[in-house]
C-alpha cells in the first residue's frame, strides 16, 4: 500500500536528486545523505520512490523522451476532450487509413500480470494477449509480422481481403510460425516456444531446423534447434481468452504454477499437497477468488500473511 510521505520530505528528496545529478558530491554530502535517508521510514520510502523514478527516466534513450512527450500531452488532452463530445475518431482514423493504404502499420501492445487484451489488426486478424505479454506488430508491403517478446498470444487470422496475399508470421526467439488461414496460440517460455493449433494449420520454422506443419488439435514445443515435443490440444486450452482456466485432473502444483502467471506475488506450496489432483473451472480475472475456491475444493490452508508470497499447506 502507498504510504503518504510528507511533502517536506519529498522536497528534500528532490534536492538530493538534483545534487547527485549535478555531479559534484563531496564525501561529507554523501554521509549527510545517508544520515538523511536513515532519519525515518518515511525518508527511506521517499528515496525508494526517487530511485524507482530515476530508473524509469534511465530507460528512455536521449533525444526521444522529451520530443515524444512534448508532442503528446496537449494532443491527448484535446483529444480526450473531443472524445467526451463524441467526435473522437477523425484524427486517428485519417492517420490509420492513410498508413493502411500504403500497406504499412505498426503497433506495440503490452499486458501486465493479470491483464488480458484483444487487438484488432488492419487485415482483420485478432490477437489476444494473455497475462504479462508483449508484442510488436509490423506490417510492410510484403509481410505481416508479429514479434512475441514475452508471454502468450492467441491469433485468429482474418481473411477480409483476398487481394492481400502477404504471409502472416509470428516470430519468437526460437523460430517463426506461419499462419495457414487459422487460429493458434503461441507462448514464449524461458527456453522454448509452444504453439497450439485450434483451427486449420500452422507451419513451424525453428531458427536452425526444417519446417513442419502442425494441424488443428496439435501442439508443438520447439527450441531454436527443432521440435522437442508434440501433444494434443482442444478448445479448452484457449479458454484463458475468456478469463477462465479449466482444470482436468491436474496436479495442484501445476495448477498453482498456471495461476501464478496471472499474479504479481509468488504462490508456493507444501510438497505434501503438491500432488493432490484438482478439477474445476477457475477465474483468471480474479485469482484471489480462484485460490479461495481451490481452498474449498481441497483440504488446504492458504496463508497470505507473508509479503509477496502465498503459502499453501495441508489444512
Amino acid at each position, binding site marked *: 500500500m502507498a504510504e503518504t510521505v510528507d511533502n517536506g520530505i519529498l522536497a528534500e528528496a528532490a*534536492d538530493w536528486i538534483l545534487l547527485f545529478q549535478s555531479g559534484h558530491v563531496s564525501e561529507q554530502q554523501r554521509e549527510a545523505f545517508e544520515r538523511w535517508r536513515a532519519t525515518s521510514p518515511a525518508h527511506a520510502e*521517499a528515496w525508494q*520512490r526517487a530511485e524507482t523514478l530515476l530508473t524509469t*527516466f534511465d530507460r528512455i534513450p536521449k533525444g526521444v*523522451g522529451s520530443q*515524444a512527450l512534448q508532442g503528446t500531452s496537449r494532443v491527448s488532452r484535446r*483529444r480526450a476532450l473531443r472524445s467526451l463530445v463524441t467526435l473522437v*475518431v477523425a484524427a486517428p482514423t485519417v492517420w490509420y487509413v492513410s498508413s493502411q493504404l500504403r500497406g504499412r502499420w505498426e503497433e506495440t501492445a503490452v499486458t501486465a500480470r493479470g491483464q488480458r487484451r*484483444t487487438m484488432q489488426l488492419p487485415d482483420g486478424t485478432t490477437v489476444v494477449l494473455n497475462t504479462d505479454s508483449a508484442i510488436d506488430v509490423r506490417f510492410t508491403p510484403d509481410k505481416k509480422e508479429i514479434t512475441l517478446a514475452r508471454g502468450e498470444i492467441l491469433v485468429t487470422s482474418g481473411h477480409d481481403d483476398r487481394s492481400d496475399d502477404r504471409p502472416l508470421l509470428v516470430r519468437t526467439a526460437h523460430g517463426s510460425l506461419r499462419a495457414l488461414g487459422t487460429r493458434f496460440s503461441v507462448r514464449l517460455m524461458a527456453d522454448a516456444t509452444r504453439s497450439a493449433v485450434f483451427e486449420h494449420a500452422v507451419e513451424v520454422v525453428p531458427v536452425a531446423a526444417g519446417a513442419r506443419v502442425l494441424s488443428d488439435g496439435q501442439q508443438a514445443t520447439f527450441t531454436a534447434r527443432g521440435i522437442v515435443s508434440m501433444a494434443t490440444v482442444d478448445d479448452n486450452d484457449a479458454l484463458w481468452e475468456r478469463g477462465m482456466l479449466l482444470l482436468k485432473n491436474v496436479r495442484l502444483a501445476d495448477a498453482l504454477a498456471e495461476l501464478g502467471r496471472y499474479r504479481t506475488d509468488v504462490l508456493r506450496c507444501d510438497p505434501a499437497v503438491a500432488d493432490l489432483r484438482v478439477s474445476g473451472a477457475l477465474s483468471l480475472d480474479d485469482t484471489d477468488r480462484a485460490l479461495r*475456491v481451490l481452498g474449498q475444493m481441497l483440504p488446504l490452508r492458504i496463508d497470505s500473511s507473508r509479503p509477496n508470497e502465498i503459502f499453501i499447506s495441508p489444512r
Partner: protein
Amino acid sequence: MNYTAAPPMSQSTAETATLQVLYSDHHRWLVGWLRKKVGCSHLAADLAQDTFIRLITSRLVPATPSAPRKLLSRIARGLMIDHWRRRDVEQAYLAAIAHLSQAEVPSPEDRLLIIESLMRIEALIRDLPEMTRRVFLLSQLEGVPLNQIAQTTGMPLITVRRHIQRALIACLAVS
C-alpha cells in the same frame, strides 16, 4: 481419494451476483455506447470487457448500484481516454525515433519498456504547467544541465531549479 469438485459457479458471493446482474443487464448497452464513441466495434467490445474487469479488480461494485450505467460509463470513459493517450504516446515515440539510424533504433523488447516508461512519465507530469513540463523533460530525460536550460530559456537558474523541483515532488508524491 478423489478431490474433484463442482466448478466455482456454485459458490456465489453477493458481489459476484451483483456483478453478474450488472453484466447481463448492461454489457450489451455498454458495448453500444462505446461503439458510438470510438467508432470501432472490436475496440468497443475490448473496452467494455476492460470496464468490467476494472470494476471487479477495483472492488467498486456497490451492493445495489443505483445508477449502474452511470458507473459503467464513467469507468469506460476513463479507459477510453487511457487508450487514446497510449496511442498518442506510441505514435509520438515512433515519430521521435524516425530520425535515428538503424543502429540506434531500440530493439522491440526495449521499445516496449520505453513506451511503458513514457506512459508512466506522461501520467505523472500530465497536470503540470507547460513550462514546468518542458524544463523538467529537458533536465531529467535529456540530461541537459540546469545552467544550459537557464541560458536557452532565458529564465534565472533558481527558477529553472524550482520548476524541476516542483515536478520531481509531484512525481514522488504518486508512488
